[in-house]
């Protein structure tokens, strides 16, 4: 789905969401229930750099400062963080972490945050946006990835053919929505044939500030150890049997 189609299906009565020339999404809309929702995001697959983070984080902080429980929708189509010497020199790690922290604070303050990945999402920009929300949703056609298989091949020195074969049996490193769903990163993939506004309401009702992704990954058999290992550390730290 295109961003326009998504916004139309999410907010059939209209919205004030705009996309800047730099591909930054900001604005507000009315939910099916009539309540407000804030919208931020990255469009057109652009890369997120220091300058791009600031208006998005500012929008989130304004929602928190206003109080109430207005939810926040984060729309994501980004190729990743901007790769530039200048941005790294300026401390891009702080900027990306800042955006993630603003979303996490919003969650802690009672604003449900929903990520909707409809295009690309990769690496540091993925962490700063979609993966910093309470619940991440995918739309068919979305291509979440940490690194594409040819690049993984370069680093791991394994042939792409071998990696493609491995990808069929293990979700742990293969790019793609279904793998991210199995790992617990993506909670659910929406059906684009049905109205998205109703699906958004279902998501908002189900979202919680508690991080359940490792549990989900265990239930779906994508990550069999993460939740167990974290629990075992807690048990040993507190001196209680796991």
């Amino acid at each position, binding site marked *: 789905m295109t961003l326009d189609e998504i916004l139309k299906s999410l907010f059939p009565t209209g919205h004030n969401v705009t996309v800047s020339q730099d591909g930054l999404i900001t604005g507000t809309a009315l939910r099916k229930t009539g309540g407000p929702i804030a919208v931020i995001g990255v469009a057109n697959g652009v890369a997120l750099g*220091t300058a791009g983070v600031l208006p998005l984080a500012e929008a989130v902080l304004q929602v928190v400062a206003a109080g109430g429980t207005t939810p926040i929708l984060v729309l994501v189509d980004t190729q990743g963080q901007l790769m530039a010497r200048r941005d790294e020199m300026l401390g891009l790690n702080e900027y990306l972490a800042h955006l993630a922290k603003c979303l996490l604070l919003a969650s802690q303050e009672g604003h449900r945050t929903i990520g909707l990945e409809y295009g690309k999402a990769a690496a540091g920009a993925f962490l*700063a946006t979609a993966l910093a929300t309470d619940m991440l949703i995918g739309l068919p056609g979305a291509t979440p990835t*940490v690194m594409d298989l040819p690049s993984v091949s370069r680093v791991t020195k394994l042939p792409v053919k071998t990696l493609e074969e*491995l990808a069929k049996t293990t979700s742990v490193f293969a790019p793609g929505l279904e793998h991210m769903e199995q790992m617990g990163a993506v909670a659910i993939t929406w059906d684009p044939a049905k109205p998205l506004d109703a699906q958004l309401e279902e998501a908002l009702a189900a979202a919680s500030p508690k991080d359940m992704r490792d549990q989900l990954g265990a239930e779906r058999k994508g990550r069999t150890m993460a939740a167990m*290992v974290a629990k*075992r*550390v807690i048990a040993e730290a507190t001196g209680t049997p796991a």
Partner: protein
Amino acid sequence: MDHAHSSWLQATARQRIAGLLDANSFQEFIGPAARVQSPHLHLFDLPSAFDDGVIVGRGSLDGTPVLLAAQEGQFMGGTFGEVSGAKIVGILRAARDHTDLPRVVLLLLDSGGVRLQEANAGELAVAEVMRAVTEARRAGVAVIALVGGRAGAFGGAGLTAATCSRIVVSEQGRISVSGPEVIETNKGVEEFDSRDKALVWSVSGGKNRRLIGGADAFTADAMDGFRAATKAVLAHVPKFDLATLQAEQARLAERQTRLGGCEDAISMWTILGIDHPEAISAMDNDAFIALANGIKGASHDAR
């Protein structure tokens, strides 16, 4: 060997823990004998480590009880995998939920970021660590990042560092997102010449991070240096709340405005008011610390 003055950079994760904490105070959780290791590496014909490259436990620093997670940069580049990441998540959640546990978590970061062989699990582990850091901070826990290892803190580790309450760094402790080699590969050598070590250090090295406010304390590359700097930052730790993040927004926006047009670090340092910016790289640690402490914006509560 004088252990207190020995190099943090050259040390293993276990040696760093021994050099940082009070003698014999460290107690490890799920240690190597438990053989909790990566279930994925064998698929790539890679050897596993019985601690998966992360050591977690508790101890004390000059009498202050602490929880700790240390990445071993020499195993798979200190990367976040399913198990190594979950160990860090566990220590943070333990601190968050149990007020009788130490109210300080030290993260000894030494990591190139996500482990590519476990890419999805590693990326998720970083996301879970970042969330757990903020939840622990909100619960009143001070989470301190210590960066001075060979792998630095790149990718997800760079983001994790900046999520913490405070960052202690040495000159050798590079903090960034994309590494110079990755930028060079993707954007060309004109964008970033990864073989120009002076350039690399001026961009992501500890001195630049400290000068622009990207790290809160600078230390010599030594065990006692990290020990003293960590103890010092614990005296005052910012809360995780709206006021802090609004202050961080203002701080990062101002940096973008003031320094965003600079092509190199020397230009940034000149704008920061440093008289002889070209002398920074050769400056000794004490002189540098004194200089950095006097730079407006280098020391702040906005993190």
